[in-house]
């Protein structure tokens, strides 16, 4: 190797690395689906991340278990009381539902839904913006596939599964991602629009004409099912401000119902909207 190249070896390596990555970036603009290289890196490293998180969670569980045992009797009493009131509540709700629908049809739907709910833990966040996506510990082996709907523990909409889906991990696009879109309507007046993220933990409701004066602050938004991805009737969020602008549409801010700080665990709905109807 010539002397000048030896002296500039490190600079050459830097140039080569930068060049490779510029090629990688240019291959993806405009952004489309994940490329094979990204999928390969995700598949290789997601089990490592999964393992590390599980390891530290186990250590945490041992520590928590110690404190839990200390207060076991007290906790048991509290839990019994809680179960009792929950059973009462459950009975009342079932009775109310029974009065609205035929019992047989309702039971079929409930059992069908129950088999298709998959509990998952969050094992990773999006390093570029935490409000864009999360990684969950369920993958193709658990029956997870693209476009499955993800809910929080209270049944509020969190997002949907997007690619890549690894064997035991998958990525969930949150509704707070600016590139997401959910077809919704307001529960009070049935005004339809599209909810998209603002990238800062909140959402915006798009395409509501400025002539429309029915939508108000505190209105609840639920999925309409028109997008063919999210089933109808899932609570999405609450309108927190409606601002009149000079443009064709209102500037409407929405607070999602799911709480980012207490997102874990989540439920993956292993059923498509068409099957639910």
């Amino acid at each position, binding site marked *: 190797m010539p002397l000048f190249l030896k002296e500039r*070896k490190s600079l050459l390596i*830097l140039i080569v*690395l930068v060049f490779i*990555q510029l090629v990688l*970036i240019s291959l993806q603009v405009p952004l489309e689906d994940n490329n094979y290289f990204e999928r390969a890196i995700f598949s290789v490293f997601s089990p490592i*991340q999964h393992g590390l998180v599980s390891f530290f969670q186990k250590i945490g569980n041992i520590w928590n278990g110690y404190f839990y045992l200390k207060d076991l009797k007290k906790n048991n009493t509290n839990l019994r009381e809680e179960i009792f009131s929950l059973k009462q509540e459950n009975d009342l709700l079932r009775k109310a539902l029974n009065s609205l629908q035929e019992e047989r049809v309702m039971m079929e739907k409930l059992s069908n839904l129950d088999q298709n709910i998959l509990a998952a833990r969050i094992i990773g966040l999006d390093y*570029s913006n935490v409000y864009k996506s999360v990684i969950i510990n369920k993958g193709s082996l658990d029956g997870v596939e693209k476009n499955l709907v993800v809910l929080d523990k209270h049944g509020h909409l969190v997002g949907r599964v997007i690619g890549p889906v690894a064997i035991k991990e998958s990525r969930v696009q949150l509704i707070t991602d600016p590139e997401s879109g959910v077809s919704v309507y307001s529960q009070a007046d049935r005004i339809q629009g599209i909810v998209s993220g603002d990238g*800062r933990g909140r959402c915006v409701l798009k395409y509501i004409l400025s002539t429309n004066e029915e939508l108000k602050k505190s209105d609840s938004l639920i999925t309409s099912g028109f997008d063919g991805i999210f089933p109808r009737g899932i609570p999405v969020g609450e309108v927190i401000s409606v601002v009149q602008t000079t443009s064709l549409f209102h500037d409407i801010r929405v607070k999602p119902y799911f709480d980012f700080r207490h997102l874990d665990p989540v439920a993956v709905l292993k059923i498509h909207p068409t099957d639910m109807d």
Partner: protein
Amino acid sequence: MGLTIVFLLYLALKTISFSLIQLFNIFGLIVIYFAMRRGEIFGACFGAGCGLIQDAFSLGVFGVAGLSKTILGFLAGYIAKKIDVTPPVRNFLFILFLLGFEFLLWALLSSFIFSQKLFIGKTFYSLQPLTTAIFGSILFILLGKIKYLSPDLR
């Protein structure tokens, strides 16, 4: 050990609030640490690897973090070879400069590719270089002291 501390901090922050994770550029800190010890070539290669892993776990264009961390690793190794960056104040300024530069590079690349303003104004993102530099310089001092007291780790 440094990696364990960083990972534990990450888990602790995640438990308190997801937003707090934005305060620390953990990958950047790891790249700087290894580049300081192993030189600019290792720093660039290691930065590329770390950045691409970060990209694989993020939504967006694959390679943006890879590119910015490659340059970060190279610069960290190169500067550390030319200047002694071990004194605490110099170490803090060194990390702050590098992470600030990486942040700027990443923001420019992202806004250029997405052709839109980045959402960094009202989040913790803009504080990230400063908070990471404070934490990083303290961590590096502690690691240096531990290695001094335990000759086996040297």
